[in-house]
């Protein structure tokens, strides 16, 4: 059906301004349910008329709000008011019957309550378990994603043509060890792969140094975890070396503990 004619007929305006009979109103509501454009037009008219009403507003005196709040409070109190018992033996026996019926109902309701409460407890236990599972999976997902992001970043770095790889060969301390530094001279990015150094003694840690004209510059300490370590930015170096230092690293290298070394 073509809703254009319907919309332009003016019936929607009559609807919003409250000039339609009940039957006509229902018809408009049906049309609005069926046709999106009718509903949208209706809403635009509503908003215009709302603005129109706001343009003619009039501040009520404070007694109105007070009256409303009092009235609401009153009706709410009435709802909890309990009817007082009155005397009379017939009334009393009826009351007893009612009380008996009420206590049976109360008993049944208690049984139902207990049943539903236990069900509720079981279900909420299950819900808690599911929540835990969900949290666990989310955490796992997050840590995997972080790993993946890190690896992706490393890959991108390593594939940068400006990245050079330098092999550091083992010294007399540890002839079998080798380590590789990946260095981007332009950006200063420096990575280290040092998997086959001997396990350091407790309280000791390896430290990477960049040698600039023979002077050592700290390039950061590292632990013996798997993978490639990102080290400090180094913009100039003639050679790189790794020494074993007390935990946290030293200001200058302990040359007696030089493990691997390699020139640029």
């Amino acid at each position, binding site marked *: 059906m073509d809703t254009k004619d319907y919309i332009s007929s003016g019936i929607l305006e009559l609807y919003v*301004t*409250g000039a339609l009979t009940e039957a006509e109103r229902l018809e408009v509501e049906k049309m609005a349910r069926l046709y999106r454009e009718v509903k949208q037009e209706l809403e635009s008219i*509503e908003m215009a*008329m*709302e603005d129109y009403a*706001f343009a003619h507003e009039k501040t*009520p005196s404070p007694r*109105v709000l007070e009256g409303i709040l009092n009235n609401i409070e009153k009706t709410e109190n009435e709802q909890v008011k309990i009817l007082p018992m009155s005397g009379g033996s017939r009334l009393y026996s009826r009351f007893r019957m009612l009380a008996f019926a009420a206590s049976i109902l109360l008993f049944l309701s208690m049984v139902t309550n207990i049943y539903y409460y236990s069900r509720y407890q079981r279900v909420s236990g299950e819900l808690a378990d599911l929540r835990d599972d969900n949290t666990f999976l989310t955490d796992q997902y997050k840590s995997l994603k972080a790993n993946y992001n890190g690896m992706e970043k490393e890959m991108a770095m390593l594939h940068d043509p400006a990245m050079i790889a330098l092999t550091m060969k083992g010294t007399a301390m540890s002839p079998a060890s080798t380590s590789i530094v990946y260095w981007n001279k332009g950006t200063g990015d420096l990575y280290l792969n040092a998997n086959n150094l001997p396990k350091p003694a407790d309280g000791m840690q390896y430290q990477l140094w960049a040698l600039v004209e023979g002077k050592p510059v700290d390039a950061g300490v590292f632990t013996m975890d798997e993978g490639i370590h990102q080290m400090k930015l180094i913009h100039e170096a003639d050679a790189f070396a790794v020494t074993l230092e007390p935990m946290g690293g030293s200001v200058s290298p302990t040359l007696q503990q030089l493990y691997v070394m390699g020139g640029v």
Partner: protein
Amino acid sequence: MAYIRGLQSGDTEVLKTVYERYAPALLGVISRMVQDDYLAEDILQEAFVKIWHNASAYDASKGRLFTWMLNICRNLTIDKMRSRGYKAGKATVMDETRLYEDPGKIYDAIRPETIGLREMVDKLKPEWKELIDLIYFKGFTQQEVAEALNMPLGTVKTRLRSAIQELRTIF
């Protein structure tokens, strides 16, 4: 939509907020219908109690909250006027001056956010404003407007549409 949920859950703080926001506009309409400020406030009060108790009946898919509240006010006002023998305000049809008789009194709610709206309404053509006001503020039916303004029934519809169209371009 937060308003209606608050009302439905019985939060009187929300009721106060809704009252602050909408009561002046609602009272503006009611008092134009009944021409009696005190009675208008009584009706507003009754309407809000009704709004409070019937909040669950409001169906957002059928229209805006304001429209729903206004309909409650409007119906209540019409009932009151009938019971008081007003004949729904139609006695004042020809006495149009009453609608605007005391602008100072009627336009007493100065809220900064609505001053602009008021100026815009003044831009509306007077005959269109009259048409809108008869229906919106006085509760006339289409038939009654046709009789009062001596125009064909269909014309009421199309003119009202043009009037509100213009209103929409003004706002």
